[in-house]
């Protein structure tokens, strides 16, 4: 089948125009340095898709939860393969403010029999595949993280594209035994990729790619350290972009540059004593769960109206376990496996409840938060499944919790207005009286 066509190019050009327009609008805004860097990266990523399509460059797709390092090291020369994070289009459509586009894709997937229980990110991606707007791949690489929806999506993608899908099983626990289990699968993945692409893995390049990934982690950790400052220096909406950066930009100079801009912006703002909340920071909240991608402006509303800032969320929870020791091919595969397991969201949703609960409690303590927000994406059944344990742990720690139901890409589940009302009540009835603010 061919998925190359004018319809697809038109869609990507619309995203390109949208991202470029946003960038032009924010270009002169000194408060938007970090976000501009992300927009610039989104623009470059869209350009990358368009030129891959124009040049007929071989594409290998990977899913939400995956990382691109192995794909970036395929072939003798740089950029012989275009690694394509399939769900990126859904995020980019939301970024440019076109929720209708994603809703149409979601509906299309459902009309074709995809269960409405499957994550909307995957439903929208399946819809996009059916619309034939995604670049045709030689094959796809999937991980069973961050959630069970990935398994369903992989099967559907295999059927729609009639191309092979390599599936990496992410185990329930995250110890050394499990890391070695994933490292073993990465070896199999390399064989699969070499066979499908006809290109050998370049181990020297993989070393360079992983070193570049490490530089991005350096920047991300520094950025998070700066965000611990009270008041939080930088707008909360930046957090949700970190996951896309990790997924799409790891191992690339562009990705490291964006992360360094995040950190530089945060540092600049800390030194200038700037706060993410224009009227003053009143509440520090840890947001665990999916972000409100369908309306990324929601975070600014929180900051402006409630003085509520989010210094860290689940999507941005980068940890030192994501570093890769580049000494030998064995250490590289071992640590890439560990990075894969410890990716934010995947680490929290694929595994024992403690990974989610403990990280949240640690974040509350490290970032001096006043409360926690359980952002319950309707498809995250694994997350909703531990809500009782989470409530119990937070109650014991005397941390107020707001749990709310919504869909990260589909505003039809919970509207912005309904969320706002829930946040207002939580702020005014629960958190502020405790803080006497």
């Amino acid at each position: 089948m061919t998925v190359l066509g004018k319809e697809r190019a038109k869609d990507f050009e619309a995203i390109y125009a949208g991202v470029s327009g946003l960038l032009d609008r924010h270009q002169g805004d000194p408060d938007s340095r970090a976000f501009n860097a992300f927009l610039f990266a989104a623009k470059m990523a869209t350009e990358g898709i368009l030129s891959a399509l124009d040049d007929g460059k071989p594409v290998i797709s990977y899913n939400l939860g995956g990382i691109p390092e192995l794909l970036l090291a395929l072939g003798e020369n740089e950029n012989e393969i275009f690694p394509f994070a399939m769900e990126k289009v859904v995020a980019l459509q939301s970024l440019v403010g076109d929720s209708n586009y994603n809703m149409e894709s979601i509906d299309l997937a459902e009309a074709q029999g995809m269960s409405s229980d499957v994550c909307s990110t995957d439903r929208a991606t399946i819809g996009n595949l059916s619309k034939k707007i995604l670049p045709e791949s030689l094959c796809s690489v999937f991980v069973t993280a961050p959630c069970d929806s990935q398994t369903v999506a992989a099967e559907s993608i295999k059927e729609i594209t009639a191309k092979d899908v390599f599936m990496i099983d992410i185990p329930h626990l995250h110890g050394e035994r499990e890391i070695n289990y994933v490292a073993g699968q990465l070896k199999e993945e390399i064989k699969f990729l070499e066979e499908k692409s006809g290109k050998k893995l370049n181990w020297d390049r993989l070393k360079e790619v992983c070193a570049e990934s490490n530089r991005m982690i350096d920047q991300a950790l520094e950025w998070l350290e700066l965000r611990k400052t009270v008041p939080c220096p930088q707008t909360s909406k930046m957090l949700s972009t970190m996951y896309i950066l990790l997924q799409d930009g790891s191992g690339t100079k562009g990705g490291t540059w964006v992360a360094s801009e995040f950190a530089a912006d945060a540092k600049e703002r800390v030194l200038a004593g700037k706060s993410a909340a224009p009227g003053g920071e009143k509440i520090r909240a840890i947001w665990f769960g999916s972000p409100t991608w369908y309306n990324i402006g929601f975070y600014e509303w929180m900051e402006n109206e409630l003085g509520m800032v989010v210094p860290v969320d689940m999507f941005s929870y980068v940890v030192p376990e994501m570093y890769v020791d580049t000494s030998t091919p064995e250490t590289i595969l071992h640590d890439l496996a560990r990075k894969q397991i410890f990716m934010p969201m995947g680490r929290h949703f694929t595994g024992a409840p403690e990974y989610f609960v403990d990280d949240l409690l640690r974040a509350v303590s490290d970032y001096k938060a006043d409360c926690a927000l359980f952002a319950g994406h309707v498809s995250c059944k694994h997350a909703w499944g531990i809500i009782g344990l989470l409530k119990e742990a937070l109650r014991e720690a005397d941390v107020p919790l707001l749990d709310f139901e919504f869909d990260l890409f589909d505003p039809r589940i919970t509207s912005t207005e309904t969320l706002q009302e829930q946040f207002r009540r939580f702020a005014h009835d629960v958190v502020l009286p405790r803080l006497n603010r």
Partner: protein
Amino acid sequence: MPNQEKVTAGVDIGSSTSKAVILVGGKIASYAIGPSSVSPTKTAHLVFQQALSSAGIHREQVTYTVGTGYGRAKVEFADENVSEISCHAKGAHHLLAEVRTIVDVGGQDTKAISINKSGLVMEFAMNDKCAAGTGRFLDFMARSMGLEIKDMVQMHFQDGYPAMISSMCSVFAESEVINLINEEVPLPSIIKGLHKSVANRISTLIRRVGVENEIVMTGGVAKNNGVVETLENILKCRFVTLPGNVDPQIIGALGAAVIGFEKDQSLQSRTENAGNNRGTQQAQF
């Protein structure tokens, strides 16, 4: 004037009924409950005036008034508005310091509120976009059966098993009730079934915040012993009784008045401190 004589008021404008409570020195002096009208502003004036008259107090004597409830923004004479969640928590904690869970079932919404030992709200859950599990649901059903709510309460305690009402939605439940009547199912059974439906809905909300003793029920539906008994059986617990025969329907207004009392005290204390500080400064310089 000493604090004990301070007069504060709470006015709760609900969707079905409106309530006002007058506190003198932090203690209930009077209260009034009346139907809400299409004009929340007029309703607020009316119910406030009734409570004032009942206590023999002039409006000018009230030092701080707090508005709450669905129509709180329309209590134009209030010094401030506070949400009904905070007010129910405050009112219940004021009367019963041991209470940790409050379930308020009003005309339009149902709230389950978890509070800590200081009376601060820890968590809440509410249904505010559906009549299921609210007083309005029971009103609809009473109307379908040509009964008054008080008749339903009385009939609940007559013999009979609860009929199966499978739908929580008031529209569908009404159809079910009509079918049951046509099938000549005895009214007490239908009423028990309806109370079970409401109690099931309320219990899911309470479980969201966690069932922690002591539990108290507030709001108009708390006066319906049929619902109270059914809910207690579902939750396998007993609700604590409000002391001194306080009407459970006024807890929101009471909480508002208590918040007003605390605010008034705090304002007075700040004024006195400012005065004292000025005095100190004058003495020093």
